[in-house]
């Protein structure tokens, strides 16, 4: 009879296999979200959620504008069957070179276009997420659903093809376009009646 603890041990070969296979599953990094409800709309809390990081943060600190796209999807089951069509939100973030400390500016394309400046890193993240609002029309209070938030950056545009001597296409650049940075956050199963209630903040479009 095998020892009970034997089944919990992972061999060195197992660790090696796991380390090789782990990057193949992008969902592995899906962090959980805190979702709140204001009787009409779902809101996503920025608590513990950080997306201004990595290469995009370096691009920001180099003075570039980084466009983020937040996509929120609601599912009937564990991220297979859609409950509502995913909603997209665009944000333009920039870093103030002459700001006091690390300060950011954020804007949305609109309409209506909105803009905020002199925000800290976490303040900028909060500002963006406060604009991510999902209407709950058609969802019963006791209906189970799952929520997925995907945040991705829009990679820098490809080189312009127009030059002084004609049109030029860099084939290598076209075949190997810049990678966007993606972060996925999930929550579920959820029910409206179970969610933390917040005062009404705004309406989803």
């Amino acid at each position, binding site marked *: 009879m095998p020892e009970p603890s034997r089944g919990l041990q992972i061999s060195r070969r197992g660790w090696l296999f796991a380390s090789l296979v782990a990057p193949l599953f992008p969902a592995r990094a899906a962090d959980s979200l805190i979702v709140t409800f204001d009787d009409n709309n779902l809101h996503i809390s920025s608590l513990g959620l950080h997306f201004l990081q990595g290469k995009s943060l370096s691009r920001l600190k180099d003075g570039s*504008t980084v466009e983020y796209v937040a996509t929120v999807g609601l599912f009937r089951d564990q991220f297979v069957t859609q409950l509502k069509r995913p909603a997209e939100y665009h944000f333009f973030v*920039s870093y103030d*070179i002459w700001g006091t400390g690390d300060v950011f500016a954020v804007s949305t394309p609109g309409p209506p276009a909105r803009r905020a400046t002199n925000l800290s890193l976490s303040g900028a993240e909060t500002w963006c997420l406060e604009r991510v609002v999902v209407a709950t029309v058609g969802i019963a209070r006791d209906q189970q659903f799952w929520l997925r938030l995907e945040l991705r950056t829009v990679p820098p545009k490809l080189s*312009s093809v127009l030059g002084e001597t004609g049109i030029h296409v860099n084939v290598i650049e076209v075949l190997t376009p810049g990678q966007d940075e993606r972060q996925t956050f999930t929550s579920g199963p959820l029910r409206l009646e179970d969610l933390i209630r917040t005062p009404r903040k705004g309406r989803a479009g």
Partner: protein
Amino acid sequence: MKRAWLGCLLLGSLLFAAPQDSDNNVNARYVVETVIVSGKGWTANLQSETTDKISTSLLHQLTAIIGQKLNPASLDTLAQNLKRELSASEVTHRIVRGETPEQVRVEFEVRPARATLGMNVNQFLYDSREGFNGSGEATVTLQQHVFALGLVSNGDWLPERFSGLVARYEDKHVGTDRLSFKFEAESFHAQWNRATVAAMSENPADVPALYRARQAFQPTATVVLAKPLTLTLGARIERFVEEGPAGQIETANAVITDLHFHQSTEGPGSQQDFDADCSLHMATRALNSNYVYSARTAGVRYQFRSGKHIVTDNAWGGFITGLAPLSDRFVLGNSEYLRGWNKYEIDPLGGNRALSNSVEYHYGPFQAFYDAGAIWDAGEPIVVRHSVGLGLRESVFSLAVAIPMRSGRVEPIFMMGILP
């Protein structure tokens, strides 16, 4: 007419598509103090120094942002232009604090590429009389070596419509930046206009024969004598397969020399560019050439830019002695010289004497031009012709209507496409 409207829409979309990045970037309120470009082993602060690594026109674009409010979208465009011109693998840009508060420095870092693969469309022109003309090529760049293979179909530049293949090898740095080498090979099939064939039958003795195909090899070396003066020396070895069942082969083997001068000067808020060029093609029996001739050309071009205003004058002339093949004879009445006139009406066989002057005025994308020129053969009377035109030009896209000035009827020519 449908094509004209399509062209208008395309050009319009280019003219009115403005980048929005400056609205979204908080640093757009700061003024650019200086621009610094650095590559492998070199750095240039463009506020106080210049560099020979970058062309004058691109230097002008880079220095134009100094003293202006920062436009982050324009930095992407400048980085792309640097990348293309320097065949770099990547050009990144960053904004850092300047020495004065509220001012920023823009730093471009150029990373050289080992190899690039490109597709180029160098010309694509629709002319309401000549139809479509185009040329494109695929290029592979390995450090300073460029290999290119392209396709051409052109009824605009020469008395013939020529279609075929071009191949090119170029070494931009033969031991030194002052010396470059180029080898070009061409193989074209020729088609002749009825007017040319008719003119040929009227003067069979005075002009060279029509051909159905031609091939050429042209090795040249260019040396920088003293910046900005360059000298190109080389040879052009060309063979013609003449029309007719026998398909007789004729050769035109010539030595080539070309002297080129370019100077650009900048004043407060303005820029002046001056180009001068003179060339000699000389084909002799000593080079085993059937055609014996010499072609001399000279041209000057002056351009003045101030804000959105650009005035350009382009004067050019040439003469041929001896009997040159039709592909080497001068042509006026195309998309470049004496626009609006029909080259087959003026001189269907081309001429061995030509003079041309073109004055252009641009305000932003709007352009107006006045062309004057004459083409003739030695001993013939000189008839000077004029034409005027209006159009739009954005980047390399051009849309123009040219009207030949003559008594009687008005026959405007519509031109649209990519014109370098």
